[in-house]
């Protein structure tokens, strides 16, 4: 079964008296354990599509089925629940809470899911170990490097065992070497059976995925499999 099934969705924003067609007519399916990159120049609608896929926003028209449930008909609370349990977000700017240490940042989605304190701790710990930060649990974000911060964010996305990981330019704020490490981590996560959707404008990053969807002017320009995937080597002892 498709995790995500989108049929003819459109999104129209009103800016003053002008209507902006961010998405015109997009249809696509994403299956379990796919690794998809969404590409496109700025203004192509890829951010809008990502917000839509992440249930942060609902389409103006068209059908979006998430695991068979229609997202357009959901209430705010239902959307919050879906985001909480089914989607793990990874952002370009990490978006960690500066006042919280790493483990508390990772625990946060579990708080909103109503998981007990002891279980939260345990799962957050495991998630941090999984991303290779077992020894950085009580560090605050400003005591961590960029790559480490992004790994905390990835641990936060993974901790709820979501159906999809949604990464928006996850290497945009990192140098190329650290970016490569993060991509290796994503590759590892994918191998474990997770579904990953990667939004990027860099060809080189997109080629880590198995499938690339190219957007232009609110329409899908191309939807193709990657012929020669970049599979980075996971160095060091990231994953114990």
């Amino acid at each position, binding site marked *: 079964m498709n995790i995500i099934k989108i049929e003819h969705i459109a999104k129209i924003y009103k800016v003053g008296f002008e209507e902006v067609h961010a998405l015109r007519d997009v249809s696509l399916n994403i299956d379990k354990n796919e690794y998809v990159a969404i590409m496109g120049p700025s203004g192509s609608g890829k951010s809008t599509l990502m*917000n839509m896929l*992440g249930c*942060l*926003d609902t389409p103006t028209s068209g059908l979006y089925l998430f695991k068979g449930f229609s997202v357009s008909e959901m209430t*705010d*609370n239902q959307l*919050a*629940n879906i*985001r*909480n*349990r089914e989607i793990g*977000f990874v*952002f370009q700017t990490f*978006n960690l*809470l500066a*006042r919280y240490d790493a483990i508390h940042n990772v625990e*946060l*989605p579990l*708080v*909103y*899911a*109503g*998981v007990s304190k002891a279980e939260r701790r345990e799962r957050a710990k495991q998630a941090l170990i999984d991303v290779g930060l077992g020894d950085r649990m009580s560090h605050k974000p400003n005591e961590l490097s960029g790559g480490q911060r992004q790994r905390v964010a990835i641990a*936060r996305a993974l901790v709820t065992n979501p159906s999809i990981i949604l990464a928006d330019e996850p290497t945009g704020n990192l140098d190329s070497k650290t970016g490569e490490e993060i991509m290796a981590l994503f590759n590892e996560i994918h191998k474990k059976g997770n579904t990953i959707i990667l939004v990027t404008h860099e060809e080189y990053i997109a080629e880590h995925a198995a499938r690339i969807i190219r957007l232009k002017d609110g329409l899908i320009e191309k939807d193709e499999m990657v012929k020669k995937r970049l599979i980075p080597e996971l160095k060091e002892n990231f994953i114990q």
Partner: protein
Amino acid sequence: MRIFLYELKEGLIIALRAIISNKIRAILTMLGIFIGVAVVITMSTAIKGIDNSFQSGISSLGTDVLYVDKWAWFTNQEWWKIRNRKNITIDEYSEFKELVKLPVAVAPVTNTIQTVKYNERRVDNVFVNGSNADYIKTTNFTFAQGRFYSEIESNAARQVAIIGSEIAKKLFPNIDPIDRIIKIGGFNYKVIGVLAEQGSFILGPWNPDNQVYIPIETIFKNFFNRSFKTITINVRANGPAMIDETKAEIEGVMRKVRGLTYDQENDFSINQQEGLQQSYDSVVGVIQIAGLFITGLSLFVGAIGIMNIMFVSVKERTKEIGLRKAIGAKRRTILSQFLLESSAICLVGGLAGLIAAVIISLLINQYVPTSIQIDSVLLGISVSLLTGVISGFAPAYTAAKMDPVEALRYE
């Protein structure tokens, strides 16, 4: 439900962290609530204290006592008409006493203002009451020591005195007053009784604590003759339920004593504490409303401060709100988070204000009686919490209904 509790706990932690990380800002904001709560509570304890004092004063004088007097306490008659009334005399009292049946006690009262001395110590402008042995039955006085004067002492115009508790403190700070000789207006008196504290500060010189009681015949002997001024007849009804009936009887009896015909107006007044209570209530009511309104304003200003700072806090944390929403926080989660923050600020400020109010109340208790009640403590806590919720609501609501996409994009 369980989720909500976790969210609540999380919200509380977030709130406390936010307050701690902005210490100076939080303290300045709290100051507004602190001052507001402190003045509101101090005001209410002072009002309560004054009220208690008045009520105990009233009851020490007896709530079922009627006063037959030349003068009216509350009247709309012209002053000169009342002034031209005949004085009530001690003979009229005797006649009156023979005729009335309903009252439990009837006593003639007159007074004079004198200086009271014991050796080198003195108290000026003391109300010296003169009456007979029945007087004590018209009051609810209790004794710290000794007794009231007897009928024999009263009829024989003995030089004996009962002193109020304040007078006793001033004249006899360290010694037993009983059987000591004091000077009232230059005449020697033996102290035979000391009243227990009646605690009616608000009555001022009429407070029994500040008075001296001697036989009426002794007043006539030492200070002025029988016809010098009018006396008051204190009449005690047999319980509050009998007041109206007793009032009707004594009015009839007094008209008879005065020999008034049916078409003549009363040339005397019957006063009662109800009138005193009413005028007190209206005065205190105004003080209460004005006081609470003015002090309430300072709380209101404090609340505006909270609202202002909460709007700033929401704006500052737009991105955080966006992230929280993206990872699954619901509207009510965000709402409660910010409500908890404003309530926590208000509660801490309010508790500090409450402590300050208690200290202030204890300090001014020496001048104005204050009474710290559990309900003013609860009032302080609930007022500060309510202020937090009300002033935090608009900012919290703004945060709760933020669009997560917009919020995440905010720099």
